[in-house]
């Protein structure tokens, strides 16, 4: 009798999801050397480290264009496909756009994994795209020893309603739509430290589309937002502050966390990506008011398919929070404030 073994994608990878991103410090150095883009129809490019590029077709229509792919974050191929797709689509939502079409990007070891796993990853991606109303109209697969999957996504946006990293205004409140801790919980889970409930919650968070949060954001007239992924909450907030020329203050005690993330961090389960992100952010950050080391490291935990971080005018905070909760984001919380630039881009605090 042949035993049918369940495919476990995690056997292939040490660091999955967005924590597999190249170090932000290295990336920044390399991108600096690339030729500057001068096409006036390019509305957003890599210079502001935004979530996606934006290209103006005419006065009413611009394309939001982005790609993202990574090695497995979980054992199950179908779930991995869903998470990778939700993560790729998120960049379009973070720009205020509506994703329309996408292409699959896949690397797959056909010699060491059953072809059913390939099919399941794709099925997960296509199901998630369908949930978002996106058509996947092609793709490309190459052989590689470690599987990797993601989408290249094109979305539509009105050129006048592009939401960027660079539009934070002093006085804005920062709302985060999903709890933080996917990197820590996944690492703890691989070591047998995380509870099954926490792993389940992390997987659910990563699978959750940011489409409804994006709709709420549009109705609240938000101009600046990003999605939280590999650079962690602190890293992405810093990038926004720098692009906008302001200081961002984040109260880590107010940040919603997945399950026992704090406990896992306290036991030393701090993924390497958090140290890379911290090293990137530290020169431009102030940690004088954060008394809890664990919370500081959680601020730099690399997230996969994280929530939206949006800057909301003070008078719209209550109604926006209420609407987010009604739209399937019960964890949404106000976690920070935008101030005039005061020496550092990022200020972390804890109670």
């Amino acid at each position: 009798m042949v035993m049918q073994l369940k495919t476990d994608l995690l056997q292939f990878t040490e660091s999955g999801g967005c924590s597999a991103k190249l170090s932000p410090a290295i990336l920044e150095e390399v991108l600096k050397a690339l030729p500057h883009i001068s096409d006036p129809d390019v509305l957003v490019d890599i210079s502001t480290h935004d979530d996606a590029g934006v290209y103006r077709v005419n006065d009413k229509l611009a394309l939001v264009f982005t790609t993202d792919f990574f090695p497995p974050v979980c054992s199950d191929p179908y779930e991995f496909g869903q998470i990778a797709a939700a993560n790729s689509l998120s960049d379009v939502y973070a720009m205020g756009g509506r994703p329309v079409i996408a292409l699959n990007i896949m690397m797959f070891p056909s010699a060491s994994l059953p072809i059913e796993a390939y099919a399941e990853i794709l099925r997960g991606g296509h199901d998630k795209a369908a949930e978002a109303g996106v058509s996947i109209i092609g793709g490309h697969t190459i052989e590689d020893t470690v599987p990797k999957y993601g989408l290249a996504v094109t979305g539509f946006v009105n050129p006048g309603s592009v939401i960027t990293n660079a539009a934070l205004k002093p006085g804005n409140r920062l709302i985060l739509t999903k709890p933080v801790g996917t990197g820590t919980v996944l690492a703890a889970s691989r070591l047998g430290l995380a509870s099954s409930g926490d792993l389940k919650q992390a997987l659910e968070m990563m699978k959750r589309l940011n489409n409804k949060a994006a709709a709420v954001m549009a109705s609240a007239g938000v101009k600046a937002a990003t999605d939280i992924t590999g650079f962690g909450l602190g890293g992405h907030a810093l990038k926004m502050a720098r692009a906008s020329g302001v200081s961002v203050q984040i109260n880590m005690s107010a940040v919603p966390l997945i399950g026992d993330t704090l406990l896992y961090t306290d036991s030393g389960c701090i993924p390497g990506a958090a140290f890379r992100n911290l090293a990137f952010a530290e020169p431009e950050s102030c940690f004088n008011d954060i008394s809890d080391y664990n919370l500081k490291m959680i601020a730099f935990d690399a997230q996969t398919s994280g929530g939206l971080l949006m800057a909301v005018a003070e008078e719209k905070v209550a109604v926006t929070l209420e609407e987010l909760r009604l739209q399937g984001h019960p964890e949404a919380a106000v976690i920070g404030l935008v101030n005039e630039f005061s020496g550092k881009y990022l200020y972390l605090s804890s109670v």
Partner: protein
Amino acid sequence: MKTVDVRGLQCPLPIIETRKGLRELPEGESLKILIDNSASLGNVCKFLEDNNCSFVKMESGSHFELTVARGAMAITGSPAGEYCSTSRPPLSGGKYVVVLSTDTMGTGDDNLGRKLMASFVNILTELDGIPSAVLCYNGGVRLALPDSPVAGTLAELENRGVEIILCGTCLDFYGIKGITIAGKTGDMYRIASVMAAAQRVIRP
């Protein structure tokens, strides 16, 4: 001197072992950490620096040796000695683990004990913080049987993300494997590690 050897370990195990080593270090002793790759070395050094643990770094052939002296203060503002000057730093959060080692609560009358146990498990769902795990062993596994007054509550807790672990050996012993309606089977290793990782273990 105590030694923590993290050679050959992948991230984040070197930090976990360092953390554990510091936590368990007896008063007045120092800790030696052996590390063999530069990524781990960087992370462990940063971890120690950020927690104000002073240390000496030495290269020793194919690996590095960090010697951590005790008595430093923890990161700005946090309780003194979070890592270095007390042997048992306070844990954050309020999660706890419940152990059900029998289907009755208290000693005296078993009928009363069964009622008390039912009441206890039901009240768990109403507390501000539900447990992170419920461990059932010996007679405790019978609480997950269909005719138990709390099997439904255990299933509800499980749906809310609580890990319900039923001791596999005990299910076999009582001949009730496969007919429980809540929880997952776990071995003693799982039970012991959940207990060891818990901030508090509650046993009614």
